[in-house]
Each structure stands twice: as structure tokens, then as C-alpha cells.
């Protein structure tokens, strides 16, 4: 039985990103091409400074390439207005950062609800969705905790809940486990994997932790802003 044809949801074509640092030009990403298919569970690996964060930010429309084309669901990001990019991030992309993901004055519930409110979803519907997501990420009972009343692992779960609550096309996670202990890191990966398999959400996460790499189904190695052919 031939596997069903998978859709490419992210297409990166000959993308470069350079920064001017004083007189030196730094190529954070250098002529890189890569396709990501729907449902992938992919880790971007590579040493510090290899361009992982830069690439994730460009995929998420937070930053634009200096050269080349990035398409998300066939849309070329560079052609979108600031407002359209903002809506795209709100509706189609989930972000999880390494730390300080949450809005400190909001409870776990409110943080997870935030993007739905931005979308203008009615309150009752939001409530239903948020309660079920918080339950899924194992935070039932902690809805009214503020970030400073939660552990690092719990905070990352809230961040994941916020990232998936809108049913995005892709979740981009930049070293999501770097600030939690290995036990919590495993638990977060379990959660992400489960969401990936059960809900079919595409995950791209960056890491330099070999234990995290082991959990990925696809590994993309970066070195000096390029795919590392040696790895």
C-alpha cells in the first residue's frame, strides 16, 4: 500500500539571511532550501550560532529573509503586509519559546485563551476549547495560576496549550525544553508527540540536546546557516 501523498506546508527555497554587525556581514542563514510536510515532527539541530532561531523566526514570519522565498501553505510570507503576517501568526502558527513565553499578569487559563480572544471567538466557545486543551496538556486544576505560581515545565505546557489552541498549521518551538530538567523535558516531548500523532499538528523544534534529537522523526542538521551534509 503506497503511503498517502503528503502535502508540503512549508517550502524554503534558497533562503539567506544576513545581518550587518558593524563592518562585518554575518550570514545567519546561507542559501538554504528545505521542505516541511504536513504532520512532520522535525528537529532542527546544530551548534550554537548555526542559524536555528533565525530560520524558525523566518518560517514564523517574525523576520524576513534577505534572499530567497519562504512559503507557508503556498503563501509567500515576504509578500504579506505587516497586518496579514500578524493574522497569519495568530491563525496558522503556534510559537513556543525557550522561556518567558507567558504574559505574567494573566493566569494559565487567560494565557491559553489570549489568541482565541484575538481571533474574536465568542467567550463560551473559548472556554470550552481552553478547558479541554488545558486538560490535554495536564494542567487541569491549575487554570487560575499565574506564571510565577507555576514551575518551568508547567509554564511550557501552558505555552504549548496556547500554541495549539487555535489548531494551527504548524507549531514552531525554539528550544522548548532547554530550561526544564530532563524529566520534564521528556514529559514535554511526550506531550508534543502525542499532539502531533493524535491531532496531526506539524511540529518543528530546535535543540542541541541529543536526547531530544532522539525523539524527532526527522532531523535537520544546520551548520553555519546551511544544511550540514556531513551529519
Amino acid at each position, binding site marked *: 500500500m503506497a503511503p498517502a501523498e503528503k502535502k508540503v506546508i512549508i517550502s524554503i527555497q534558497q533562503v539567506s539571511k544576513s545581518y550587518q554587525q558593524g563592518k562585518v556581514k554575518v550570514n545567519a542563514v546561507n542559501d538554504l532550501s528545505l521542505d516541511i510536510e504536513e504532520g512532520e515532527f522535525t528537529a532542527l539541530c546544530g551548534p550554537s550560532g548555526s542559524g536555528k532561531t533565525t530560520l524558525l523566526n523566518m518560517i514564523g514570519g*517574525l*523576520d524576513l529573509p534577505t534572499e530567497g522565498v519562504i512559503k507557508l501553505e503556498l503563501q509567500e510570507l515576504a509578500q504579506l503586509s505587516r497586518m496579514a503576517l*500578524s493574522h497569519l501568526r495568530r491563525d496558522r502558527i503556534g510559537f513556543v519559546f525557550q522561556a*518567558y513565553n507567558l504574559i505574567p499578569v*494573566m493566569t494559565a487559563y487567560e494565557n491559553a485563551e*489570549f489568541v482565541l*480572544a*484575538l481571533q474574536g471567538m465568542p467567550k463560551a466557545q473559548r472556554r470550552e476549547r481552553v478547558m479541554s486543551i488545558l486538560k490535554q496538556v495536564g494542567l487541569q486544576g491549575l487554570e487560575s495560576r499565574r506564571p510565577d505560581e507555576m514551575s518551568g515545565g508547567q509554564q511550557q505546557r501552558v505555552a504549548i496549550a496556547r500554541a495549539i489552541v487555535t489548531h494551527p498549521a504548524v507549531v514552531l518551538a525554539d528550544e522548548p525544553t532547554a530550561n526544564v530538567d530532563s524529566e520534564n523535558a521528556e514529559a514535554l516531548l511526550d506531550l508534543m508527540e502525542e499532539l502531533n500523532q493524535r491531532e496531526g499538528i506539524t511540529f518543528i523544534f530546535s535543540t542541541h540536546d541529543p536526547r531530544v534529537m532522539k525523539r524527532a522523526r526527522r532531523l535537520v542538521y544546520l551548520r553555519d546557516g546551511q544544511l550540514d551534509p556531513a551529519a
Partner: protein
Amino acid sequence: MNLSGLAWRNIWRRKRRTGITAISIGFGVFLAVTSSGIGDYSYTNMINASAQMGWGHISIEAPGYYQSPALDKHINQVGAIQQMLQNTPGVESNYVRIMGQGMFASAHKSVGGAFLAIDPNTETGAHNLFLRSLEEGKLFAANSSGVVVGRGMAQKLKLRLGKKLVYTTTDKKGEIVSEIARVTGIFTTGVKEVDSAFVLLPINAVRHTIGYKSDEASLVAVMIEDQRYTTKVLASVRERLDSESGQNNLLTQNREILSWRETQSEIAGLISLDRSSNYISQILIGLLISAGILNTLLMSVLERTREFGVMMAVGMAPHSLFFLVIIESTWLAFLGLAVGILITIPWYFYLNRIGIDMSGAMGDDYTAGGVLIDPVLRLYLYPETIVAILSVVFLLTLLSGLYPAWRAGRIPPVESLKAM
């Protein structure tokens, strides 16, 4: 959670900083109320007191009379003018008067001064400072030849009640005339120049002496209900006199309608000087407070750079961040106004009802620009001044929030995310 709820929580993240900012806004309200309140109260008092010294808030008189009040300049048909004034909106009352200069002599001595000739049947202390200041004796009767003199003049001329005074002035045609009057009363206004140089005379006697007909006088003094509306009332007085004069074929001669700003230009100058120095100090206070608010909001925006980056990453539009900070400054403004109102109300009512006695600091001269002023410091605010203060403080707070808000919406998300 909606933006205003989020903004409300945000301003309470730094309780002390927000508290200090709110108190400084409140203090601004306090200072503005105090200085405007002193102004509103004392200007009104000065204007009314000066209007009660003869010319009224508005006066209808012969052209050039107020610059050199000689008796050859007069208006006529004052009865008709009075009738027209009767139901002009804003006019409280009006008085026909003759004012002129003269020499006043007793058996001992003579002094130069001025007289105000009034109708004792219509004038009351409520609109006439001299009558209100009557210390001894009483006002003369309408068809008598009495005189009421100031205490200073009485002392100089060694006059007592019942004594004779000879006054000399120029008549309608410019001829020198004199007449004898008997002292019926002595007043003390507290203004030295006035008490030593002013007398009141019955208008009928003066008319007879200087050759005015019974419908001729120097001026009609108009008192209005609220001095703030002088300009408006003056316009309607002018309109009425102009239109009705034409209809009734009256008052064809020249006349001027002047406000206290012209007839009491010294007071007007004093007030406008004081008012502009008030404005300057209020602008300075406003700038200081705005700088404080700007600083608070800018700090709070800059320290949340990372947070704003996350919010933009998850899809908050930059303009919503702008509005978030604007709403934060609105909350701050409300908070500041609330603090301001709380600390100002007791102060205002204390100074409004009781006041602070400044007579120690003022020595014994309670006058300014030739007008008596109250040695007790009091506050009074017109409702529109209150509205003006509150809205200016509110607007300043909002304006101070604009730049921080603009900053918040302008930082690109990647840069925000790098800030830790």
C-alpha cells in the same frame, strides 16, 4: 481578557511606581485647583468691588468721558435708557449717576477730590461700596442738600456730622459753580485714596447746581449678575440700545457703552497680569507632571519589550499594543484624577468656607489697584474651570502616553524577542 482589563492589571505590576505617578497627577490637580481657585475667587471679588465704586460692570456714557470725566460731557434721556435696560438679559440693576471732580472746603481747609452723585431712593449697599461702608450717620434724603464724606476727608477738613461743606466744580457749560451741603454720614472703605478724596451727593441737588436737566447724567452704571458674562451682556445692551433708539427716535446723540475693562483699566491690567503668570506656572506644573507620566510609561514599555515580542509572535497586531499602552495611560489618568479629587476636595471646602487669614502677611493695606481685597485667602472655582482642569490633566496624561505607546507598537517582533 480584554485590553482594558489587561491594561488595568499591567499598571498594578509596579504598585509603587503607579502610586507615585497617580499621586503626582493628583498633586497637579491640587495645584491647578488652588491657583485657579484663588484666581476665580479674587478676580471676581476685585471686579465686583471695583464695579461697586461708581462705574458698574458696564457703563453707558458720553464719548471720551471715562478718559477725562468732566461735566460738560453728559448723556441725556437716561429714563429711556433705564427702561430699555430693565429687561435686558443678564442685567441685574442699573443706576443713574453724575461723577465729577471738585474742590471740597470746610471752615478750616480745602482739598481736591471727586464726587459721586446718586439717587438715594434707588441705591443700596449691595451695589455701592460707599453705602456699604457707611460708618457713621446715614445717607441723605433725595431732595436734601446732604453729603456723605470719606473718613480721611472728614479728618482733613475737621468735619463731623451736621457740619457744612462747600463744594466747587464746573457746570455743564464749563463755568465754576459752588454749593453748600451738610454732612449726613461718614464712610470708611479702607482704601486710603478713596476715603480721603471721595464724597457722595444727592443727584437732584447736583443737577440743579451744574445745570443738568432731569434726564441728563454722566452715566448709567449697569451691574450684571455674573461678571464673567460682561462681554455677552455688553453686546446685548448695545444691540438693544441701538435698535430701540432708532425705533423710538431717542438718544440720537453720541454715547459709548464700556465695560469695566475700559473704565477700570488698572484692575483689568492687574488681573490679566496675574492671570498670565498663573498660566505660566500652570503650564510648568503640567510639563513637570507630563514628564513624570512619560517616564513611568516609557519605563514600563521598555521593560516589557520581550513580553510585547511574545504577544506579537502569537498574533497581536502592533496597533493593539499601541492601544494597550494608551489604555494603560488612560487608567493612570483616571487614577491620578481620583487621587487629585480625593486630596483636593477637603482642601477646597476648607478654603472655600473658612479660608486662611493672610492679614498678617499683608500688613494693613488690603488694597490692590485702588480696590479693596479680602485679606482672607479663599478659593472658589467656576464649574467650567473644574471641567477645564480635569480635562487638561486627563489630556496631558493621554498625550504623555502617546510616545511610549508608539514605541510599543513599533519595535519589530524579532528584536523584542531577543530582549531578555
